[in-house]
């Protein structure tokens, strides 16, 4: 049985009731080596240890600004960091402030936070797209900075924006992505067809430009992209934001399936409290770049219920409000979408 057939076979298991899912197996393609697989059994999926990331909001061309500031300081014979040069325009913000957490293998771990709380920054550091200022991040025992390439083989990501080459079809986009992870083209084509159909995308749309597809369908293609590379740690950054209820449910079923039949560990950031409650084994609430509480959904709800003097557990929304002290919808835009420059 080829690995593609194994995957196609395991996909059909998703149609079974949840309690009949197959035992986790190693069904891996492309990027992973035998050494990578061996690491899965000996290390936690994700360890974040005292991670901090600061950024400087400059509102302008920071490279020039940094260069001129550096020249000015050296002309004056001063030394030290750029912080000595702050004028009114420079504002240092701690996007992630001394965050530590550990995620076990095959766990769905939720990170809840309002916009701008540092969720996306956390995901981008784990994705090797941002270098931490302090602390370390390990994926299955591999440091994301020092062992960047190994880490990249182990992870993939679905973000709130389904980022694709819009003129290209799902097949062309996914073939490109599969090749980057070393999945053989023939195997990838078969798997792309199977996966997209499994996610409800009709065969006649697979070769049409993505720009003609709805946002929900594009997001499904984004999930297929992550699935194709067989990540052992999947980073889901608000994957269902903006989707209609049916698409949202499809995606949630697929997330469970990834964990149950494909041995994936999932780090999920979301605004959707019901989604977090339904999917996550454990949850961390992050506020102002710091983790303010961590536990299972039931633990958090019971804790807040007791704090509020209720005779029943609180809802997760109430727990969120209690720990963040405000409504997430009224907060600042997320850091990815503003014009801030990272230090």
């Amino acid at each position, binding site marked *: 049985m080829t690995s593609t057939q194994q995957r196609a076979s395991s996909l059909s298991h998703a149609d079974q009731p949840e309690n009949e899912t197959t035992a986790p197996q190693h069904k891996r393609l492309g990027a992973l080596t035998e050494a990578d697989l061996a690491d899965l059994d000996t290390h936690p999926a994700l360890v974040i240890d005292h991670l901090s990331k600061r950024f400087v909001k400059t509102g302008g*061309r920071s490279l020039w600004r940094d260069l001129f500031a550096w020249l000015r300081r050296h002309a004056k014979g001063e030394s030290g960091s750029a912080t000595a040069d702050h004028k009114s325009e420079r504002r240092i913000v701690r996007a992630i402030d001394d965050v530590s957490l550990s995620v076990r293998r095959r766990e769905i771990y939720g990170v809840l936070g309002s916009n701008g709380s540092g969720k996306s920054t956390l995901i981008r550091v784990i994705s090797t797209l*941002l270098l931490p200022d302090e602390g370390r991040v390990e994926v299955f025992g591999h440091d994301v900075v020092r062992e960047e390439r190994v880490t990249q083989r182990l992870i993939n990501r679905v973000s709130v924006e389904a980022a694709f080459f819009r003129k*290209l079809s799902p097949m*062309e986009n996914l073939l490109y*992505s599969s090749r980057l992870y070393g999945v053989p083209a023939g195997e990838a084509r078969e798997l792309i067809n199977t996966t997209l159909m499994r996610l409800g995308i009709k065969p006649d749309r697979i070769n049409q430009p993505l720009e003609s597809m709805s946002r929900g369908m594009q997001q499904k293609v984004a999930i297929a992209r992550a699935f194709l590379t067989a990540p052992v740690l999947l980073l889901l950054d608000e994957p269902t934001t903006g989707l209609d209820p049916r698409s949202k449910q499809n995606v949630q079923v697929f997330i469970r399936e990834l964990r149950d039949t494909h041995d994936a560990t999932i780090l999920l950031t979301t605004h959707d409290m019901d989604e977090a409650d339904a999917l996550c084994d454990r949850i961390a609430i992050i506020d102002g770049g710091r983790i303010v509480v961590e536990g299972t959904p039931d633990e958090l709800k019971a804790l807040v219920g007791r704090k509020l003097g209720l005779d029943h557990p609180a809802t997760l929304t109430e727990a969120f409000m209690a720990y963040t002290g405000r409504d997430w919808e009224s907060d600042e835009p997320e850091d990815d*979408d503003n014009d801030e*420059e*990272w230090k």
Partner: protein
Amino acid sequence: MLQSGRAGRTPSSGEDGALASLSAGAARMWRAFASELYKSYAFIERNWYLTKRYWGWEIVWLAYNIINALSVTFIAASAQKTVPGLHFTQAQINQFVLYLTIGTAIWSYVSTVFDGVTETVTIERWEGTIEYTFMAPVSRITHLVGACVFALIHGFVLTVIQLLVMSLFFHLDLSRADWLAALIIMVVGSISLIGIGAISAVLPMLFTERGSQMAFIIRAALLLVSGVYYPISVLPGWLQPFAYISPVTYLLDGLRMSIQSGSNTIQLWYDIWPLLVCGIISIPLGMSIFGVAERYAKRTGKLKRNG
């Protein structure tokens, strides 16, 4: 009886082990190399798909290059009429036409290659895929090699089409051309462009909004100093040293020598070695600068989509 020579020696088990280990090491290296080649092809294939989907832009770009080349080359065709009192033979005019035809063709080629390499970052940022490409387990050398190979093939095809159209308008005297030498100088010259292309690709990574426009400055500087439309000897003295560090100068000179004068590969050595040196220096330098810039982008958060 003494046995002498290697033929009589039986390898010990230690040597067997060393050979097996060496062989396994070589096999691993080959697998790694083949894997990187395969990943490199991802960028070639993707750019081909994009070229097909944006075919309208291809036609616009080709038409622009052809019209530009015709406009410049007509200057040579009209030399007799634009410089009163001077008389050129038809053969001299044909040589001037060929001189400018080669200049315009190579400039189109260089422009296409530079655009292709610079867009390595620009198009990813524009489409929003930059984070996904940069978090994939692909070395930046593999990434840039894929982008460069497609850019070179793309540039070559467009330039050949441009030359075919030019040949409909002008009599191009190619009777003395040494095509093998021309091909060799093209290959060597193309390699030398990759490093400069990689350096220019850094600009869109660091300057998210204006990087592409800034890369035009590098191209414009090459156009000025490389003798595309005129010999570098007409440049002011202070500009001429820049001509000597531009690989396009040697590429153009070598091509003109091989096509117009029929110089063979050995005679072109004075153009080939500077191109080789340029490639040997600029490719590792370009890759290193790209690596440093990528690290800076990861530290400052610039490695993200627009908007």
